[in-house]
């Protein structure tokens, strides 16, 4: 055993320093692609332990890869350079809610959905709602700057963070930001760290902003016979003085997949479906519902469905949730992207996807948060088919290019990680990327924190196949 691993046991109890083959393999993956065996998994439960681990790692130049529940879709926690996986998931969960301030201070291991649950007991809400919120930790959400359907109205994780407690790569414990809604003291380190994917610091606590919970919601489903009409209807709605909480999109392939998987009564002959959720006071919702019905009729909707009960509405949202498993039935491997475009460009982006589908002979479907331009194009393939996976790699690259051509971005909410690092320069340009790298280098002079993420290594390419 390496000497530094023995040294770790000096400040973290031996039962939480995992070195067996089985344990190391169990932290070698996340929900994206690739497996990388760490030398050791260290399960930390307090900030002093994090500080001690980082000081040792910094001294011995050992890579440290922070990890929450490992639900990441972009490879954030993968130990691509071996070394240490810093498992934050077993940290004692604590939620310190201050309803009169509309703030909450949480431990990094708290599951995101539990924050919202605690807030709801006081008539409040924590707005970011990634679909993995019942599994994912807030620490992971902060590191990846996760989004969710409600992002349309309420923004992503970074829009709800007031302050952080972090451990620097050199093992120093610092506070950033504070507890107040307004705080313009100095350079905003909080926003710098949120979304830095564990490359700048390890988050050990966070103070988050809560909002009043809207008293009511209203679901509406609209079907169109053309994707372009659906796209135009979204823009029309958002410029008519209405801001829905969610506007979710499903293309025909997704609708068909859901109906084959668990029939929910979606219109299978529609080219696209939008599921809308309005939130607010019941009277306002009544007015807005009427306005949306008018807009959708004007835009040539084939069908407008207003659920008659909460159960009916729940059924529609359940159908939306079923898209992911349903499309997995088409083929076993899912390459799920989150390239995002300006909302008015969704129809153009859909056209480009159609071209890619034909060019590379692949199953490509699209669904997602159309209201904010954050689509999830998914390529359904089979990991074991090397030739097909190579076609997927080419299609993904062209998909990113298409999003950028349309004024979009590589990632709306999943993060860069290992999966999108090779394309960073495409979006940021050489100097833009270098400015980011300079920040990284000054925070982490020895490059020990989560190496191999965000920044491409020389000649790095997207690899989804293995021979």
């Amino acid at each position: 055993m390496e000497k530094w691993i023995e040294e770790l046991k000096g400040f973290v109890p031996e039962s939480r320093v995992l070195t067996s083959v089985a344990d190391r393999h169990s932290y070698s993956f996340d929900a994206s692609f690739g497996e990388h065996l760490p030398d050791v998994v260290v399960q930390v439960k307090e900030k002093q332990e994090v500080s001690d681990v980082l000081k040792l790692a910094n001294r011995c130049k050992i890579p440290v890869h922070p990890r929450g529940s490992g639900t990441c879709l972009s490879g954030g926690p993968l130990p691509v350079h071996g070394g240490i996986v810093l498992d934050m998931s077993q940290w004692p969960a604590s939620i310190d809610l201050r309803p009169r301030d509309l703030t909450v201070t949480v431990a990094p291991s708290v599951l995101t959905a539990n924050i919202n649950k605690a807030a709801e007991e006081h008539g409040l809400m924590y707005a970011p709602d990634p679909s993995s919120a019942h599994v994912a930790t807030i620490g992971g959400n902060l590191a990846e700057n996760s989004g969710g359907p409600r992002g349309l109205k309420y923004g992503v994780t970074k829009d709800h963070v007031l302050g952080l407690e972090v451990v620097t790569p050199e093992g120093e414990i610092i506070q950033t930001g504070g507890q107040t809604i307004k705080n313009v003291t100095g350079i905003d380190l909080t926003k710098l760290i949120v979304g830095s994917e564990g490359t700048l610091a390890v988050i050990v606590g966070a103070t988050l902003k809560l909002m009043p919970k809207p008293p009511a919601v209203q679901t509406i489903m609209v079907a169109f016979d053309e994707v372009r009409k659906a796209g135009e209807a979204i823009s029309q709605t958002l410029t008519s003085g209405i801001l829905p909480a969610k506007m979710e999109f499903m293309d025909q392939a997704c609708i068909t997949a859901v109906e084959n998987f668990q029939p929910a009564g979606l219109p299978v002959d529609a080219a696209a479906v939008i599921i809308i959720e309005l939130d607010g006071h019941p009277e306002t919702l009544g007015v807005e519902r009427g306005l949306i019905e008018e807009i959708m009729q004007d835009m040539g909707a084939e069908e407008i469905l207003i659920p008659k009960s909460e159960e009916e509405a729940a059924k529609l949202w359940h159908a939306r949730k079923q898209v992911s498993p349903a499309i997995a039935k088409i083929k076993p491997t899912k390459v799920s992207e989150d390239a995002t475009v300006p909302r008015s460009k969704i129809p153009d982006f859909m056209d480009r996807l159609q071209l890619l589908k034909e060019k590379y002979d692949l199953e490509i479907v699209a669904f997602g948060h159309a209201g904010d331009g954050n689509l999830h194009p998914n390529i359904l393939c089979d990991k074991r088919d090397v030739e097909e996976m190579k076609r997927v790699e080419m299609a993904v690259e062209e998909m990113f290019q298409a999003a950028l051509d349309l004024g979009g971005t590589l990632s709306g909410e999943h993060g860069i990680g290992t999966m999108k690092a090779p394309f960073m320069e495409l979006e940021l340009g050489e100097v833009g990327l270098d400015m980011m790298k300079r920040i990284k280098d000054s925070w982490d002079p020895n490059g020990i924190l989560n190496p191999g993420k965000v920044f491409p290594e020389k000649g790095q390419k997207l690899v989804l196949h293995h021979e």
Partner: protein
Amino acid sequence: MSSLLKEKLHYDKTFDCVQCGYCLPACPTYETMEKETHSPRGRINLVKMVAEGKASVEDLREPIEKCLGCMACTTVCPTNVQYGAIFEGAKQVVDDESEKAKPRKLMEDFFFQTFFPSSKWMNSLGNATWFYQTSGLQKISQQFGLTKRVPLPIDKFETILPSMPSPKERRARVGRYVRKRPSCAKVGFFKGCIMDSVFYKTNQNTMELLLRSGAEVVFPKQQTCCGALHAHSGKVDHSIELAKQNIEAFEEEGFDYIVSNAGGCGARLVEYPHLFEEGSSWHERASAFVSRVKDISEVLMEMDGLLFEKELHRTVTYQPSCHLRNVQKVTDEPLALLKQIPGLTLRELERPEFCCGSAGVYNIVNYEEAMDILDVKMKDVCGVKPDRIVTSNPGCHLQMKLGVEREGLSGKMDAVHLVDLLMEADPQPKY
């Protein structure tokens, strides 16, 4: 790595797992053992690693042996991974490679090949328990701590066994119960091994409820152990033989229902078709068999032949058997039956889906891990303060009794099989 090993490990099925982690919050051992290694996603990944030659079968042993097999993960999996098949395959591979000490192997062979499948042995177990309890031996051995000296933690369990019928009573049982009035359904009763030895009275009560509901009840003599414990211990071949014998035993008469009152047995019975190749005649026979297999609670609800008028002033909670809930998918019927009893207060657990830690022979083989799980369960139970914990499987039943004892609540709280509680309310035939 050999293709045979890949096949045994269901390597192809491991690709259905997209490693999303949605199974983590559902897995009891992930919660108590605090490692991905003891989570469904972690186990499936290790199976894949072993199949690819990146880890050894020995690396897989502990994670597989410590899995409860409660199948809670399968109810939350968004991609319908066949965890049951992967788990059983891995169990078998681990068992095949095992260099178990000889005495343990001999003991296991005796248990699985002779003891469980044999009614004779099972009756003897029941009779021996009866003698042990009535002769005063139980008291003496408890006083002298004799039961604490056996190698397995049997001593922890023997104080919680229910009282037994005498051998005479056992012999007097007949194979067919016909109603005086015309019956509305013909039921084949699957008696189970532990149920029929240790919970003999519950079996008698089950048949009584069926009769009162208006059914004719038949007790096919050729039936044998369902094979659940064998399959979960990596003895798949043997469990196939048992399945064939049961399918044959229940084919003779045209039953409307084949009824089991043990969640663990019922779950095994409904999985019989998976044991045979699709398209084979055995697969077809197994499918026909399964189409009639029901839990007692489902049949009582379907026949709707009981009238509950006697008030029963008790506060109960329902602890669902994982196999009844997650494999047989029976969730509402036991609760619906309880709600029919006048005067009964039903308080539901916060996390009924969390396993109690019994899991077949898990609590005997992995005693400490099982007690950690049980502690989580008992915290939930104590939160709702019932005086009865209603169960639907013998393993859970004994485990809940053990939980009550460990909490020092004996006399204040007790476990009871759903069927026995229903009989306490003395329902009368509707028709």
